[in-house]
């Protein structure tokens, strides 16, 4: 006894979300399963660059052309996920002039608008650039919020009848007569939005076709049916700065190398990255040298980074793939292109297609291509409209004025809310009165937090990626418990507590890599608030030891009798 669906998509990253949206819009009954939250894997662990294609203009012009094309599409259909920052390829004196010229020519060859700026002109745009930067190429790079983008794709898919299940891990593939007919899925806490404390359950989902879009985990999915999907995961660090030192994407103009990009992302800047092949996409060392390298190297471009506050670092693994027999040694040389592996053709195991490689910028195009492939198999003739249909939230811009005046928000908070919520601004903000700010670092109000909870259940990390709450300079020190409180009373106390502990652990995970200077003081203050003032670490509710209440101070006999005596302050 299982569930039936036409297509089962495995993986809630950008590819999986793009595929489920496309299939749903073509009228195909589709289910997406993701083992964590949406964007849990590689998508949520990237620097948020929406490529202009400039980065590939020398090494891989086919990719570059795809990038600029999709860059334009996403600005149209996902306006509330994209910030049009522009980008610069910056040349320092020691960087190769010939390469600069190749880059410029490459951009022109690929129809990427490119303009050469002098050092002074570049510094006029980005005043914190080093004084000895010689020149730069300006290209239409942009910043994209991968969380919001994936969530919008998933919401659109659901609006078109798809089922999206997070915290639902594929624990086996169902194989019948040499054909993959579905997957065994283990729900961490029941079906539907996640609910802490709800017992897990196993569901067999039968499908006419399975799409393996598990990215760096695609090999593990393949293993369930003894298929060899040779993904070569390669890790890279991203270091998050507390503020925006640049408002434009800044790339180092040199052939390849670590630590060559700064992406302004929401309130922060993200520095990237390193590139090291790892064996296991979930278990690899997160190393100090990587953090030091990005800070020190990128300070050559933007010197203020050397002294600036770092909030945290996180690592992502690229789902790199190369066809068997290519034998590239250095992961930085492995192609960033994507591959569609039809296991019927490749391995004579029908019923599943894997998609590997690729990048966020071209996720929609990849999704279109794989959806075409699946539709052909299913005999579905509907055509793709995902390049033209705006994603939910991007139908029209958020109304800043209304947010300020109707909902009494301070202008920076209203502006941020309108940017995050897009066309949903009015509906969401109208849902809560009064509507206090829950996360003051990022300007996130109660209404937005509750809206995210409605959408994603008790998973506060899912709330976090939808709203940015707890992603600011205190990393949840001031708001994690407030976020958890919004779960109550719809969810009980034990659930709120478990959700808080989980968010707290996640926030700590990244901060460990930024424990010096202001962030070390912040960590100690957070520990004092949550450990000492709230005593969360020694909470009797979490330990099994019963408290002998009578052994403690029971109060002075006359206490609480409305004692007299002036105990206020006198100011001197």
């Amino acid at each position, binding site marked *: 006894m299982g569930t039936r669906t036409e297509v089962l998509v495995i993986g809630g990253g950008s590819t999986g979300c793009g595929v489920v949206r496309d299939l749903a819009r073509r009228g195909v009954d589709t289910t997406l399963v993701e083992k964590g939250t949406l964007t849990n894997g590689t998508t949520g662990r990237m620097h948020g660059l929406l490529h202009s294609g400039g980065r590939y203009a020398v090494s891989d012009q086919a990719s570059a052309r795809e990038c600029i094309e999709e860059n334009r599409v996403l600005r149209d259909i996902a306006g509330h996920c994209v910030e049009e920052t522009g980008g610069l390829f910056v040349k320092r004196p020691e960087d190769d002039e010939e390469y600069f010229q190749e880059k410029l020519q490459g951009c022109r060859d690929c129809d990427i608008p490119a303009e050469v700026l002098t050092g002074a002109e570049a510094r006029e745009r980005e005043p914190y650039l080093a004084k000895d930067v010689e020149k730069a190429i300006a290209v239409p790079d942009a910043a994209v919020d991968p969380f919001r983008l994936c969530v919008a794709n998933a919401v659109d898919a659901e609006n078109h009848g798809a089922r999206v299940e997070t915290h639902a891990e594929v624990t086996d593939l169902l194989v019948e007569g040499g054909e993959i007919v579905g997957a065994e899925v283990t729900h961490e806490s029941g079906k539907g939005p996640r609910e802490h404390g709800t017992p897990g359950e196993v569901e067999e989902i039968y499908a006419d076709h399975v799409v393996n879009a598990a990215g760096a985990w695609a090999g593990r999915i393949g293993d369930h049916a003894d298929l060899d999907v040779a993904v070569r995961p390669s890790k890279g660090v991203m270091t998050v700065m507390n503020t925006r030192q640049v408002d434009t994407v800044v790339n180092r103009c040199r052939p390849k190398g670590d630590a060559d990009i700064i992406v302004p992302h929401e309130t922060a800047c993200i520095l990237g990255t390193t590139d090291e092949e790892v064996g296991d996409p979930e278990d690899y060392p997160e190393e100090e040298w990587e953090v030091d390298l990005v800070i020190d190297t990128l300070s050559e471009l933007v010197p203020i980074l050397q002294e600036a506050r770092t909030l945290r670092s996180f690592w992502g693994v690229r789902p790199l793939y190369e066809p068997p027999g290519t034998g590239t040694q250095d992961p930085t040389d492995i192609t960033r292109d994507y591959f569609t592996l039809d296991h019927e053709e490749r391995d004579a195991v029908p019923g599943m297609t894997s998609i590997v490689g690729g990048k966020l910028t071209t996720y929609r195009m990849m999704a279109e291509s794989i959806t075409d492939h699946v539709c052909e198999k299913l005999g579905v003739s509907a055509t793709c409209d995902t390049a033209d249909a705006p994603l939910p939230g991007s139908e029209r811009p958020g109304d800043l004025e209304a947010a300020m005046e109707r909902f009494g928000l301070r202008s920076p908070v209203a502006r941020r809310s309108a940017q995050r919520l897009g066309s949903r601004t009015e509906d969401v903000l109208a849902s809560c009165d009064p509507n206090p700010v829950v996360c003051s670092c990022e300007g996130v109000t109660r209404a937005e937090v509750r809206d995210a909870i409605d959408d994603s259940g008790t998973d506060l990390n899912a709330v976090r990626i939808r709203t940015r709450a707890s992603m600011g300079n205190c990393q949840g020190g001031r708001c994690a418990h407030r976020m958890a409180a919004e779960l109550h009373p719809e969810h009980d106390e034990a659930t709120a507590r478990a959700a808080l502990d989980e968010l707290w652990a996640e926030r700590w995970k990244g901060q460990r890599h930024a424990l010096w200077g202001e962030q070390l003081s912040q960590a100690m203050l957070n520990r004092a608030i949550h450990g000492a*003032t709230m005593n969360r670490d020694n909470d009797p509710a979490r330990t099994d030891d019963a408290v002998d209440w009578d*052994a403690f101070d029971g109060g002075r006999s006359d206490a609480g009798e409305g004692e007299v005596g002036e105990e*206020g302050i006198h100011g001197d």
Partner: protein
Amino acid sequence: MAIEDDVLVVGGGVAGMTAALAAADEGASVRLVTKKQSTLRHASGLVDVLGYAPDGKLLADPFDALTDLPADHPYALVGAEAIRAGLERFDAVAGELYRGGHTEKNALLPTHGGTVKPTARYPASAAAGLASDDRDALLVGFETLTDFDAPLAAEHLEAAGVPFDARGATVSFPGEPRADAKVTRYAHALDEDADGERGRLAARVARVHDGEPRVGFPAVLGQEHPADVRAALEADLDADVFEVPMGPPSLPGIRLEYAFRAALDDAGVHTVRRPVVDYETDGEGRLSAAVVERNGQHIPHYADSFVLATGGLVGKGLDSDREAVREPVFDCHVPQPEDRYDWFRDEAFGEQPYARFGVDVGDDLRPRDEDGRIEFENLRAAGSVIGGYDFATECSGTGVSLATGDAAGAAAGADTQ
């Protein structure tokens, strides 16, 4: 000519203020230089001495576990009598503002996170909230004050097994303040009672009050006149009223800070609110002056004896970068693992090396260099600038500040007499 005193205390938190009072008691002329405002404004206002033994056991009596502490713990250095002396000084400063001095036992107080914590002294305003009291309690929160969710906190207290029934309710604060009003705004409105806020609040609470003999509020019940505010609410509700300590920011902490300041004034201690940026020595191992920065001017403040009470990582008595953690005022040695990836452990709570960072002192509280030699003959340290303890996990913050502040201040004062 210059500015000169017997004792100069650097740092204006509990440790510094206690040290200044102790030094003044010895007959010394004392000046206290404090960079900005103290971390009392961050903390709950509870006076913890020792809530947990090194093995994590909850302590009903903090003095029971002193012998279990590691040898470099500040309590192990100064001893039980210094703790008692610090508490005695505290009781004199706080007077009617605080409770708990009638016993050496810890009290258990509800926290705004809904759990309970052990503490040695607690504001009178929180006294009716003791968790060992078996009377039922109603907790009241305000819908605009997101830090305290009363229904959730009440449910949490029951999960913690408190010996009473707790219930929570959320009301709107009279006057419907804007959603981002500060806690001082609530306190001021209740202090002034200009539009009958006390009575109106009580009336709103009465609608949800079901006869519980005690009613708890977030700690915003007045800044200047907390006893009056509480008495008014108690009369209207016919129940005991208590505050649930919060922070930061913390009104109980602010009230305590003012009590300390009044004591400093009475003791003739002069306070300068500017940072110390440098020091001068006599070239023979003694400090001669701390150099105070005043908006551009560098002004030496001379003294015979000095107390370093600048706080830990939170109070900015310790500073760090990717390479090292340092004590920036007198550049005293701070023991630390060389690699910053050894400053922390992977779990958020529990043992954390960084939480124990601080200067290394002997039992005379003089900071020592990496070879164990005294840094300056006439410098002592007090409070969380001292390493070797983790106030957050132990629940020992204010107690260490009182004990070491009292001991360091008394010794510094005695030296000059």
